[in-house]
């Protein structure tokens, strides 16, 4: 008995402590040497800076877009508050990957497999991230998303297989947190949670308690949506502000949303397998659907994630597909690690899987603008404005603007998340106002400024006149009538 307990403690230390720490540290070193992937994401640090200063822009940025999700920002916030950059980014990166390896442990241990399988699965995932060749795969937001997808998928699978109350709670909670990881995972989150009550329908007793599973499983997600909508209403004045960009990003939004339902079809066969396993278990008095049902759910979930990535790509919103691919591969790896097979065979198959995954990812590295470029833009804009007026104020729009201003210490350039030219003119009477707009490429297209003023980058808009181009940014001057004081000054000058 004592020996068992000692072994249990050792395994727990190995799988829950030593291995995750070593692997997360290894990934950190790798990412640092490789390309700086410890970065908390293009905008999170900028949003955190505003949040720490308590500005309205910070609050707007936190909840104002389904593409720049709140969870990675909230995750990064304590680090940004307590540590200077880049230590904050490094620490957040390390903790985010610790979370992934902990999630792997939770996902595999539910089957009662030995500790070495967990270690192998953790190592295989670290290796896959290392050889993926895509810096985005290592980012904090990807790590958080992958960890939550893993927890949600494993919980759904375990619920279908073993029907433990804790799995409903885990599926519901991880699904709700997953939703906060951004639009690309809205679908997977909905699937993981939506299927909870149905996965239990194969069993008569569980079927009778459908409303209980529905309430426990769906409530966290529904509540999260409700809170997001409420905060948009309170902070931005429009309850659906965070999803408004969808209509602008894709030409046929309804077709796009319909397309997002497609991956759900991938889970229907798994559901059928679960019910069949339940029926067989009832006949054989085995009680539960068992591991076959769990495997079916996990594999189908991975397929669904891949289909999501395809749909996003097809509609031109595929800038987050690397994250979806990472999630799919991680779920498949876990499905493999949960199978009952000799340890050497598992090691071999995981190794093969890692090697194959390099073909899957094999793309080009994402371009990351260096801080030096950001500083150049800020200084050039500031010099340009200072040369014309001592009262100038430049509103740098959107999340890209927050990123641009990360290292900026001056007062001339200020972030703006919700551009209202009329309001700016009223609020800053007597000042010369400028608006700095980013090039609407890739994810930047989702910025609110582009669904409000679709041609702003090319043509400006009402009361905005083009002034100058600074790299990928364009500066526009807000046309305002001079105040009486300004007119008096000019008269005097004449």
């Amino acid at each position, binding site marked *: 008995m004592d020996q068992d307990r000692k072994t249990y403690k050792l395994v727990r230390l190995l799988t829950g402590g030593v291995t995750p720490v070593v692997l997360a540290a290894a990934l950190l070193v790798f990412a640092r040497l490789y390309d700086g992937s410890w970065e908390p994401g293009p905008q999170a640090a900028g949003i955190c800076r505003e949040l720490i200063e308590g500005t309205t822009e910070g609050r707007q940025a936190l909840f104002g877009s389904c593409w720049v999700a709140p969870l990675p920002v909230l995750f990064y916030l304590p680090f940004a*508050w307590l540590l200077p950059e880049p230590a904050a980014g490094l620490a957040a990166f390390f903790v985010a990957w610790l979370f992934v390896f902990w999630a792997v442990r939770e996902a595999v241990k539910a089957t009662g497999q030995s500790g070495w399988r967990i270690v192998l699965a953790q190592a295989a995932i670290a290796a896959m991230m290392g050889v993926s060749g895509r810096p985005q795969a290592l980012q904090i937001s990807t790590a958080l998303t992958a960890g939550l997808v893993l927890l949600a998928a494993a919980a759904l699978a375990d619920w279908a297989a073993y029907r433990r109350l804790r799995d409903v709670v885990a599926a519901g909670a991880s699904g709700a947190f997953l939703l906060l990881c951004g639009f690309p995972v809205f679908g997977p989150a909905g699937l993981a949670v939506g299927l909870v009550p149905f996965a239990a329908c194969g069993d008569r007793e569980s079927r009778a308690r459908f409303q209980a599973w529905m309430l*426990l499983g769906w409530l966290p997600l529904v509540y999260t949506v409700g809170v997001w909508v409420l905060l948009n209403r309170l902070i931005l004045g429009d309850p659906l502000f965070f999803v408004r960009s969808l209509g602008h990003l894709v030409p046929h939004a309804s077709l796009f949303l319909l397309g997002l339902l497609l991956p759900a079809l991938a889970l229907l066969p798994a559901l059928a397998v679960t019910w069949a396993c339940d029926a067989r278990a009832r006949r054989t008095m085995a009680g539960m659907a068992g591991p076959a049902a769990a495997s079916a759910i996990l594999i189908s979930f991975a397929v669904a994630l891949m289909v999501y990535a395809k749909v996003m790509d097809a509609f031109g919103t595929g800038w987050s597909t690397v994250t979806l691919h990472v999630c799919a591969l991680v779920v498949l790896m876990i499905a493999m690690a949960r199978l009952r097979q000799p340890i050497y065979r598992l090691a071999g198959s995981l190794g093969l899987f890692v090697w194959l995954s390099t073909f899957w990812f094999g793309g080009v590295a994402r371009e990351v603008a260096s801080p030096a470029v950001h500083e150049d833009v800020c200084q050039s804009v500031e010099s340009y404005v200072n040369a014309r007026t001592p009262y100038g104020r430049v509103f740098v729009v959107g999340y890209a603007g927050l990123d641009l201003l990360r290292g900026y210490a001056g007062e001339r350039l200020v972030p703006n998340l919700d551009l209202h030219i009329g309001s700016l003119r009223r609020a800053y009477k007597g000042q010369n106002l400028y608006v700095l707009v980013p090039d609407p490429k890739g994810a930047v297209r989702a910025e609110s400024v582009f669904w409000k003023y679709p041609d702003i980058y090319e043509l400006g808009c009402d009361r905005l006149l083009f002034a100058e181009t600074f790299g990928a940014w364009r500066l526009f001057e807000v046309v305002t009538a001079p105040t009486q004081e300004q007119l008096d000054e000019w008269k005097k000058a004449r």
Partner: protein
Amino acid sequence: MSVVNEQQETPQKTAASVDPLELSHRRPDWSASQPMTRTQKIVTVALLVALAVAFAFFPQKTAQVLIAVCTFFYVVMTLYKFIVIRASLSPNAILRFSAAEIAGQEPREWPLFSILVPMYKEPETVKQMVASLAAMDYPADKKDVQILLEADDAVTLAAARSLTMPPGFRVTEIPESFPRTKPKACNIGLHLAKGEYLVIYDAEDLPEKDQLKKAVLAFETSPANVACIQSRLNYYNPRQNILTRWFTAEYSAWFDLQLPGLAALGAVIPLGGTSNHFKTRILQELMGWDAYNVTEDCDLGVRLGRAGYTTRMLETTTWEEACSVFKFWIKQRTRWQKGYIQTWFVHMRDPLKLIKELGFVNFLHYHLLIGGVTFSVLVNPVFWLMALVWFVFRPEGVAQLFPGPVFAAGAVCLFLGNFVFVYINLLGCCKRKNDDLMWWALLTPVYWMMMSYSGWRAFIQFFRDPFVWEKTQHGMVKKQGGRPAAHT
């Protein structure tokens, strides 16, 4: 903490010869007979003065600091609840014995089990209580049941005397004296108890029939330092009205999730009022209950922890009557919350000694469970009001009280923390298979407002009438035409 009860067992021991206030006489420092010590009073006044001065000179900064402290507290409480609930999933969170395991024990000699049933002015429940205890699956000659009745409670005494008591049942008359509390009656019962083990039931309780046997097995299979086995409590009238629905949801979460979680963590457990099974000798060593503490059970749980003993949870249920009338519910909750305040002050007389005896982790458990719960019901209304004002009027003043990180943490607590607490109640209902109550549990925030009202009432009463025992009114189910369900 080491205590030796020097009282000798004498065959002539009677209720009149027992000192029910032994704890307060021999160890006044453990008793709530003095609600606050002089040092505590001085520290409290000094803190209030410091706060007033700070508000006078730096109102905004002081408010910001206070809000930051409260927000930090909310974050900690949310995380703590999460940890406790997660621990409740552990296999060792609760002791389980199947019917087969119990049957496998036979034939065997079961130990003598003392049962104390304190009652006051509840003549209508005597008959049901006697029937329920007589029906328990435990050898009749091994039951030592004492019905504890106050000497001035003529109606209940008459009702009890009119019944033909089964073997092993007796009525113990409690002499009139101050304070007139349940623990005082129980202390007399404890001194007259003959059993190796002892349990307390309330008059309206319906324990599961095999509970005593399960408790014996639990003691026999647990380490020697397990001094108490707490059964789970739940209600037999959950659907009587909305109040009983909420109360049932709360009790389900407390006894089916939170207490097992605490037991799994090895934490100090604030015992439930009834169905806690003790080793009689240890309870006598600890001089029983504090007659001045209105939640003597909670206090005893802490004293057990201080003396190096632990409590385990047992998978068996005692069905009680949920208070169904708002007025009585407020009174009952006021008493509970006042008792928590009493208990917190009693054990904080010497914090260093408390850390030494409980250990640091249990010291934190103690603060979060006993101080934290009370603190939260007191400060909740302030934060609700601020949230409401901010949502409706958006005044800049409120926003300024929440600097950046505090705002973020506060928002997380508001939206996540409150949800977690509601969700725990839902889980409790689900675990009890009360699926229909889950919808009602969604309205738990209204119930919290009632708790805050009773919390403030308790806080005021702690200073004005610390020993007043607001007795819970039972028998409302029958009065309103309901009938307890049959339980096995």
